């Protein structure tokens, strides 16, 4: 895939690693699911997929009734997850681990997917029909998040939360065909190096809407003055902004992931920052 190639940036995605990915030896653990041959199935509850050794492969099928919680953990090795989810409701998708991570989901129905991504190199692909709302947050560290999205109606909003030494990448690619509609947005906070490449490929004029944007979430002088006049320090104002944006994007996942979020020093609200 040539999508990220550019005349001046020698920096490419590695989707091609997965296009012909073959299964390798490895052990994967899938908790909270029933095994049916090589397929793990889950009914509207919680599933945890993690590598135990080597390169882990798993295929999961799930039905979303109200909420489905998926945790993918590649701490012990690269993890390849494929899956099929359908239904209406919310999917909380937590991906973590220090290894390369490839997750390809076929989605069907009317789904809101909230993702918290903590990892080095994450390739997250959703293909499907219907309406897909994909909201996500990348936490400080070195993280390269690549989305590949096809669906009828897509909204993807992703927040990059770096600290001074972070290198965070968000690179969504939306392919839009007849009758489709898409909005892709990367928001980021100042700090470290952030890279946002919200790409849209429109293949026909028979499309409802197509737009994408990149915005920094910094306060303007006026906004900061207003907040400071209400008694907040700049650090508290920043914490408030991060917290509210993350709550909006993560919804119920925000509470679930509180323990993870608390481990991130730059997210801890403090009245007297060091």
């Amino acid at each position, binding site marked *: 895939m*040539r*999508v*990220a*190639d*550019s*005349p*001046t*940036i020698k920096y*490419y995605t590695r989707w091609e690693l997965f296009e012909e990915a073959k299964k390798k030896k490895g052990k994967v653990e899938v908790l909270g699911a029933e095994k049916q041959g090589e397929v793990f199935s889950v009914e509207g509850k919680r599933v945890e997929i993690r590598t135990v050794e080597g390169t882990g492969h798993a295929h999961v099928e799930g039905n979303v009734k109200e909420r489905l919680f998926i945790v993918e953990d590649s701490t012990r090795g690269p993890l390849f997850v494929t899956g099929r989810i359908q239904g209406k409701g919310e999917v909380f998708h937590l991906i973590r681990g220090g290894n390369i991570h490839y997750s390809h989901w076929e989605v069907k129905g009317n789904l809101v997917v909230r993702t918290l991504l903590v990892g080095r190199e994450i390739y997250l692909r959703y293909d499907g029909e219907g309406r897909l709302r994909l909201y996500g947050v990348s936490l400080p560290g070195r993280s390269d998040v690549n989305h590949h999205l096809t669906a009828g109606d897509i909204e993807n909003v992703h927040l990059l939360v770096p600290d*001074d030494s972070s290198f965070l990448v968000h690179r969504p690619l939306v392919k839009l065909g*007849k009758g489709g509609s898409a909005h892709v947005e*990367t928001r*980021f906070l*100042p*700090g*470290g*190096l*952030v*890279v*946002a*490449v*919200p*790409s*849209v*490929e*429109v*293949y*026909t*004029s*028979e*499309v409802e*809407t*197509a*737009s*994408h*944007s*990149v*915005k*920094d979430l*910094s306060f303007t002088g006026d906004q900061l003055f207003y907040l400071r006049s209400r008694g907040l320090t700049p650090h508290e104002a920043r914490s408030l902004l991060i917290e509210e944006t993350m709550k909006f994007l993560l919804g119920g996942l925000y509470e679930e992931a509180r323990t993870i979020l608390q481990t991130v020093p730059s997210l801890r609200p403090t009245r007297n920052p060091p």
Partner: protein
Amino acid sequence: MITKGSISRSFVEGLSREKGEPEWMRRLRLQALELFERLSDPLWLKGIDEIDLDELVLYEKVDARATSWDELPPEIRRFYEELNLPEQEKKFLAGLATSYDSEMVYYNAKKFLEEKGVVVLPMEEAVKRYPDLVRRYFGKVFPPAEHRYSALHYALWSGGVFVYVPPGVKVTFPVEAFFLVANEMVAQFEHTLIVVGENAFLHFIEGCSSPQFRKFAFHDGVVEAYVHRGGHLKFTTVQNWSRDLINFNNKRAIVEEGGRVEWVEGSFGSRASYVYPSFILRDGASVDVRAFTIAHGGEWKEGGVKLFHVGKDTRSHVVSKSVSSSDGVSVFRGLLRVNKGATGSRSSMSCDSLLLDEESKAFTYPHNQVEEPTARVSYEATTSFLREDQLFYLRSRGLDEDSAKALIVSGFLSDVISYLPPEYASVFRRVLELDFRGSVG
């Protein structure tokens, strides 16, 4: 001398000898040739693989170099008269240089330019007459090593123009260079170098054109611009190629402290086109870019703007528009890079595409890299479509369908077209009308 095919050391040395170049230029060409041989085709290129360089005329010596139109051979003059260039020169240009395939065949600068110390010369002549000045900038803004085709350009460059505006001099009338690819299976490698001195001003217009060919032609040009402290460059480029040309354009400006660049880039025609002007902004420098492309009838048009904010308090503003119709594909590859230390920098980029029918496509790949916490950046892009209700409204006002479509396209591009010089804006509107009349939907 007509030289076809086989890019080799002896060919490059022969070209350098033919032009009577100094040793440093000969060495630069040979180094670029080595790079060309070493580098592989860039991954981001699509559609250029059909070029067989061995089949192309890489250099054609034209025995004409005139400073008045009457001195030009009639068969060459005819092209420029059809383009109305002699008339435009009389009316509003301070200087004009024109090329015919590989060579500059005409140049003329008004006397007041010389009196102010402004240099407008064909590139080859500038290399001989102002070797130190040219050497200081040539290949320093857009380096040969950037990619394989910029290396090829530096190995084979021929034609182009050198413009130097001394510090403090304001050139109020535009200077124009016009590049014509007149014959098929020809490769044009013209090199333009513009230097704007401290607190100086220049409006430079670049025009490009080619007639219809049965086969195709190849254009691989470079524009380098160096704007010194407090200098101001207004650069307008109007590229109106035929649909049989593969256009590869390498353009870059370095803008020193407090300098300013206004850049208007318009592109019609060409089977495949790759144009990404790039800007390196030092402390307090600013750039305003308005660009549009039309991808019509199976054309693959790549455009985009590359912005490098390396200094403090830099400003950039980009408005890019593209129109795709009849299976045309428009691609936007933008880059915004804000380096650490470029404190207080601001950038806004907007990119809008209009698709006129269901076979057309628009791809948008913006790269935003921000390493400076105090920088403020925004990027927004939309893709819109020709709607039945828009057509219905205009037709109910008495316009036929083709005129209605041309009007919608013209309105969509008006943000950019209004930045063209009036003479060019009216020509553009006319070309738009002809291009879209009866050919969309």
